[in-house]
């Protein structure tokens, strides 16, 4: 159940009291708490992957082709136990997942963050800079939002070529418009409020009003969208890698691992695809649970 | 003559269950309406008057439910009859008119569709016959060129016209009882007057009983035979309109009457009841009006019973009486 949220009448300041209340509100939902803890665990696993994973899956020297396609629980000649089995090159799936999570999270966070910055700036400019800027930006936004993300991403990759870096660029270009539209909507409402009026009366410079006054009050929806977009970006990166347009075979991401397992699936070697997929699923669900709750707690009024 | 509708000790709660009481929006309410008579059910917003209306129709929104009492319509208790029996009564024998005519009619269906389905919900007639009936009903409530209007959509009508359509729908089956829930509140004053006269004429013609829910005492004095005043979910005073309005016994009723602008002399400040209606989950102990009443004593800490006096009743141990007022 969503907790009833206090509809404060546009008080621009988010004091520490409100923050504390928001945090305790957030954890009142068990699903969100589970999601949050899971997410922390996943982040730690990814962060400390080089130290905790049994082998470095990117170091071809450590891989033994003789250990290829072993089922979960098998033991290597050196005594290493492959808890989740190995892929065709003898790569430990568990290590692959831990390293893959790194790639996924970096791609997800990086693209969502960059898209948030670009989109938010564009949205603020559209709301504040006058009719002509607004028309140009919003036309672009409308144009882009009328095509699905994957199509935009494919288009960018078709132009830029394959590779993880290009996937990040493609994701940024495909996602910025969502932020721009939301931020413009919020900013248009905020712009009419007294504190902005007051700032204008004081003849503060435009950029100051824009970034010091308008921006902090448009952040709530940006945070919510950014959370959801990290999940979407991770899913999309995995999809593009699966299609062979993202990560390379030597430095597998989760999508790439699943992709390499695909050809062995038909012969019953399920683990190469199955476990990375579970890792991907858990990550995405955890982020979505957190994002869902954030939306309820932050309760931005102008979210679609 | 037996009453057409007799509401006995009605209790309506939101939330709760048979074991645990929920919020009581209507508490121990009893009144009756005779054929051809008009009862004015009066109270402020939140007093439970609309919920009473919806309880009789059994159209309470979840988690609302009737938690006690009886609603006897034409000799049968309808608070406990089956859903299908209730459906056959709705629109056929008990009709309802809502407050906001701009919201009552479905925006994506033509007036004709919405009237024809109302006819055919209760009578097994062809669409043509139902359409004929609908056209006549529109003509009766004073809508010009009804045949064309049948194929129009609600948004093509003005608010007053939409309320006329709603009234025409309510009158389609010549019901025994109409529950009118503030049907003129949302309308302009001139339109209000027209609608009230129209309504009066039509219900008199068909000998239909009416429960007119309102907060407007002027309308009650003009329209109603009897009055029932509600405060915080309970009846505080009932009786014939002429007696209650000229000689109110409950301090709340007296306050309501005094705060009607025409009761004041020019230049005198408008009289008002001090304070605000308490929230239904934070009622004071004893008499609910206690906190706003000038005549309050320690005796008011106990909920007073409904005292009977000839054909009227009131719930107060310090009644306003004409000699002492």
């Amino acid at each position: 159940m969503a907790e009833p949220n206090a509809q404060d009448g546009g008080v621009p300041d988010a004091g520490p009291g409100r923050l504390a209340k928001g945090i305790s509100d957030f954890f009142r939902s068990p699903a969100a708490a589970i999601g949050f803890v899971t997410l922390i665990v996943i982040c730690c696993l990814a962060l400390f992957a080089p130290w905790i994973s049994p082998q470095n899956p990117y170091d071809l020297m450590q891989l033994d082709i003789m250990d290829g396609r072993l089922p979960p629980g098998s033991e290597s000649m050196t005594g290493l136990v492959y808890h989740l089995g190995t892929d065709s090159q003898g790569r430990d799936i568990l290590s692959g997942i831990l390293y893959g999570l790194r790639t996924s999270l970096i791609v997800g966070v990086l693209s969502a963050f960059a898209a948030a910055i670009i989109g938010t700036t564009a949205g603020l400019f559209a709301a504040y800079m006058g009719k002509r800027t607004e028309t140009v930006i919003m036309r672009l936004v409308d144009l882009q939002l009328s095509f699905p993300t994957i199509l935009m991403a494919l288009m960018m990759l078709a132009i830029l070529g394959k590779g993880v870096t290009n996937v990040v660029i493609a994701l940024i270009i495909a996602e910025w418009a969502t932020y721009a539209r939301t931020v413009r909507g919020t900013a248009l409402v905020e712009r009419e409020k007294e504190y902005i009026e007051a700032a204008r009366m004081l003849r503060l410079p435009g950029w100051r009003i824009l970034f010091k006054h308008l921006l902090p009050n448009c952040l709530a929806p940006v945070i919510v969208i950014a959370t959801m977009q990290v999940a979407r970006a991770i899913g999309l990166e995995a999809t593009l890698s699966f299609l062979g347009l993202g990560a390379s075979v030597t430095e597998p991401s989760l999508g790439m691992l699943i992709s390499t397992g695909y050809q062995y699936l038909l012969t019953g070697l399920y683990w190469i695809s199955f476990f990375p997929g579970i890792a991907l699923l858990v990550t995405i669900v955890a982020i979505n649970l957190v994002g869902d709750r954030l939306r309820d707690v932050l309760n931005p009024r102008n979210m679609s | 003559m037996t009453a057409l509708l007799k509401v006995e000790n009605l209790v309506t709660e939101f939330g709760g269950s048979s074991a645990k009481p929920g919020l009581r929006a209507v508490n121990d309410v009893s009144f009756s309406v005779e054929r051809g008579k008009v009862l004015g059910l009066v109270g402020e917003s939140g007093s439970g008057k609309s919920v009473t209306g919806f309880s009789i129709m059994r159209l309470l929104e979840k988690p609302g439910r009737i938690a006690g009492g009886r609603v006897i319509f034409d000799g049968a208790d309808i608070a406990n009859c089956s859903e299908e029996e209730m459906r056959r009564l709705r629109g056929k024998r008990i009709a309802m008119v809502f407050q906001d005519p701009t919201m009552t009619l479905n925006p994506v269906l033509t007036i004709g569709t919405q009237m024809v389905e109302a006819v055919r919900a209760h009578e097994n007639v062809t669409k043509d016959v139902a359409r004929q009936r609908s056209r006549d009903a529109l003509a009766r409530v004073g809508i010009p060129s009804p045949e064309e209007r049948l194929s129009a959509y609600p948004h093509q009508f003005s608010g007053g016209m939409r309320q006329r359509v709603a009234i025409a729908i309510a009158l389609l089956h010549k019901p025994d009882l109409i529950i009118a829930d503030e049907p003129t509140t949302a309308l302009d004053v001139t339109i209000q007057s027209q609608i009230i006269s129209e309504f009066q004429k039509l219900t008199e013609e068909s000998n239909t009983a009416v429960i007119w829910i309102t907060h407007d005492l002027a309308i009650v004095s003009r329209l109603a035979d009897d009055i029932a005043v509600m405060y915080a979910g309970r009846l505080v005073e009932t009786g014939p309109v002429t007696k209650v309005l000229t000689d109110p016994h409950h301090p709340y009723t007296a306050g309501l009457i005094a705060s009607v602008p025409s009761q004041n002399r020019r230049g005198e400040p408008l009289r008002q009841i001090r304070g605000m209606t308490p929230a239904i989950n934070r009622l004071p102990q004893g008499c609910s009006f206690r906190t706003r009443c000038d005549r309050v004593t320690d005796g008011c800490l106990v909920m007073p019973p409904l005292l009977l006096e000839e054909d009227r009743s009131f719930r107060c141990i310090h009644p306003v009486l004409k000699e002492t007022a």
Partner: protein
Amino acid sequence: MVTSIIRRLIQALFVIVAMTIIVFIGVSVIGNPVDILINPDANQAERARVIAHYGLDQPLWKQYLLFLQGLLQGDFGNSFVYGRPALGLIMERLPATLELAITALGIAIVFGLPLGLYAGLYPNRVSSKLIMSGSILGFSLPTFWVGLMLIMVFSVELGWLPTNGRGPTAELLGAQWSFLTGEGLRHLLLPAFNLALFKTSLIMRLTRAGVQEVLPQDYVKFARAKGLRERRVIAVHVLKNLMIPVVTIIGLEFGSLIAFSVVTESIFAWPGMGKLIIDSINLLDRPVIVAYLMMMVLLFVVLNFIIDICYTILDPRIRLDAKA
């Protein structure tokens, strides 16, 4: 009505022109067409010949006009890989993708609409809560992984359904269709379900949200007060109001289904446009890529246009205002 249609047509034209510019800039300015078009082993004379043929030595605006001219004639050049007109290749694959997308949309509607309606009408039942939790899962599950799991369970373990291709097809209206043969239908089933999963969740949530918005409306209460049977209240008064947003979304999502079929087609080796475009991107088959992108642009513009018209027909408030 007529003026609003004309206005929308002009907007649609604007979108198409804008997208041709973007695709042109992307392919000809950001990417280096000389590198893409010409075999690195080609000699100087060969290079010059190709550059002249594609007008790559011309100023940009002239190149753009040449590009546009090609578009208008449906000439995107020959595929480097197949050596045949790119547009022809796309059109050949179109029916397979359409068949997959339409089936998936059908599945999404058949499951999503009733389940969403149920969850909206009885929000407190355990089954409703299960449905809604399921929809969160449906949102989060990566489509391509679900595809693999479907293959694993239904093809590898149970051996019920085939894993790749369209199976035998039959001809109708000049195109080949799988659903007309029993074996083809069996081939269609898994990919269609895979593609439908995400959209089913979406339609479900939308329908539920719509129901919860419509149910407390006065006109629903009034319909009940008229003594209508509950079935009619739901089927006519609630559903008809619900249809306006749902039809809009379904229309928009059909386009996205076609775009997302890229993934499903790759997994199930479904010989549609999506598989073609992935192969083309991998092989840098520029004419096919451009032809595909322009086809998609056209498709989306046409789709948006159709949705606008549907919207107008469904909502009398807009329809009649437009007439006046």
